[in-house]
């Protein structure tokens, strides 16, 4: 089922895209600097939003600062268009801007995402906005902001390599499966937000502009189009993505990120695409014109 909202129920009494013009200007300046310094976290004056921290306030502020009346917006939460967070944020922008919304990755000009990159390759001109809980990759290794800032200034990321090495020593492999550290443009260590490491290779040389917003932590960062994004690894333990022995049970895809769904209390389970638009498009192609 496809859902689309229209501008019919646009709200009165708020500025276009909710934020005031001064706030947008401040965020826009931060975004321009973020694009100029790929992977560097630009501090910004994060505002109170009409939903709590942790629900995508950073992503929403970035989207609010970049969205125009001609944009087409898609919002996903863990790949899906129809989960609570995605539905709420999509409706928020439909009501405060009146823009067209879509579930189709190819139709969207702006895609706000929580923790996934769509399976359909993005194209030049599209903007993907990530919701970021903790932007600092080094935070659990070094709690002091002044220190992590210095580590970024010097490009001193030895601690991160030690963390990955300890994983190998304990588990025999790098245990991180999401939020997997990357180096952007061979300079800055960047947290890709909690996307599965399956999605990390999609960030590399992506034609779309990638923006990241962390509301509680008050940081914005970016990866411009056609920019090198390298997942950290070792020569003898190269970076690998997840693989499944299953295909999607709805569309049969073998190249997508799969969610494991528990079907009953006897342990029956099912593997389906996490990207609901990708899965649906594949099924529509397989069974055309089913009413």
């Amino acid at each position, binding site marked *: 089922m496809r859902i689309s909202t229209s501008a019919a129920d646009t709200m009165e009494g708020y500025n276009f895209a909710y934020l005031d013009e*001064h706030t947008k200007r401040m965020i826009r*300046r931060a975004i321009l600097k973020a694009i100029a310094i790929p992977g560097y976290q630009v501090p910004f004056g994060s505002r109170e939003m009409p939903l709590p921290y942790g629900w995508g306030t950073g992503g929403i502020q970035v989207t609010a600062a970049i969205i125009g009346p001609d944009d087409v917006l898609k919002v996903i939460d863990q790949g899906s268009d129809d989960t609570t967070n995605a539905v709420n944020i999509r409706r928020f922008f439909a009501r405060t801007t009146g823009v067209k919304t879509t579930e189709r990755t190819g139709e969207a000009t702006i895609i706000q995402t929580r923790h996934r990159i769509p399976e359909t390759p993005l194209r030049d001109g599209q903007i993907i906005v990530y919701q970021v809980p903790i932007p600092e990759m080094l935070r659990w290794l070094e709690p002091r902001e002044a220190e992590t800032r210095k580590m970024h200034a010097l490009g001193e990321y030895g601690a991160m390599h030690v963390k990955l090495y300890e994983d190998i020593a304990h588990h025999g492999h790098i245990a991180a499966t999401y939020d997997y550290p990357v180096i952007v443009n061979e300079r800055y260590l960047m947290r890709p937000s909690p996307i599965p490491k399956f999605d990390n290779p999609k960030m590399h040389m992506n034609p779309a502009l990638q923006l990241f917003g962390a509301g509680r932590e008050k940081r914005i960062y970016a990866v*411009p189009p*056609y920019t090198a994004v390298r997942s950290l690894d070792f020569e003898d333990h190269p970076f690998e993505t997840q693989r499944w022995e299953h295909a999607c049970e709805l569309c049969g895809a073998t190249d997508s990120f799969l969610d494991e769904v528990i079907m009953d209390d006897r342990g029956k389970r099912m593997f389906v695409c996490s990207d609901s638009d990708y899965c649906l498009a594949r099924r529509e192609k397989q069974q055309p014109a089913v009413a």
Partner: protein
Amino acid sequence: MDTATATPLAPGFEQRVFDSIKVFRALADAMAHPGEIRRVNARPPAPTQLMPAAAAMCLTLLDFETPLWLQTSHASVADYLRFHCGCPMTPEATQASFALITNTLTMPAVNTFNAGEPEYPDRSTTLMIQVESLSNASGVRLSGPGVRDAIYLDVAGVSATYWRELQASRAAFPCGVDIVFIWGERIAALPRTTRVSC
């Protein structure tokens, strides 16, 4: 000031909200695609010394938080920006968030401006340089993030020395200045990540 002969201030954007988002998207697109010439698609009424894209960029990005450095202080330009943006004017290039350059022949060297600090490279000057023409047909070769292979940009009035200084300043990355070249309604951006070869 003789109020009797003072020319009235030009108005700013006709539609502040929608003009500024249009201009910002053109700027973000230009910054994400270094060297590619974009149109800002807005022509706010402005003093003649300000090109349309320069006026539009100022109205979109400047406010009380962003000290502006003017290469030549035309009273009409300063009054216009003070009124519409409320930005402080600074004579110190190192204090400026934005700098407006209207004459490329007499513009100061790249390293005159604030390149930020290694811990805060975002606290650097963004240069707005008004030029006589822009073209992607020839010129210096640009590469780096945002450029798929390479792109050529010809900027009238920018000397080979300036390009060499600019390329030399790249060694200080992540510190550095970001540049937006402006020609009429058109812009081309050079973030600090772009490598220049003459």
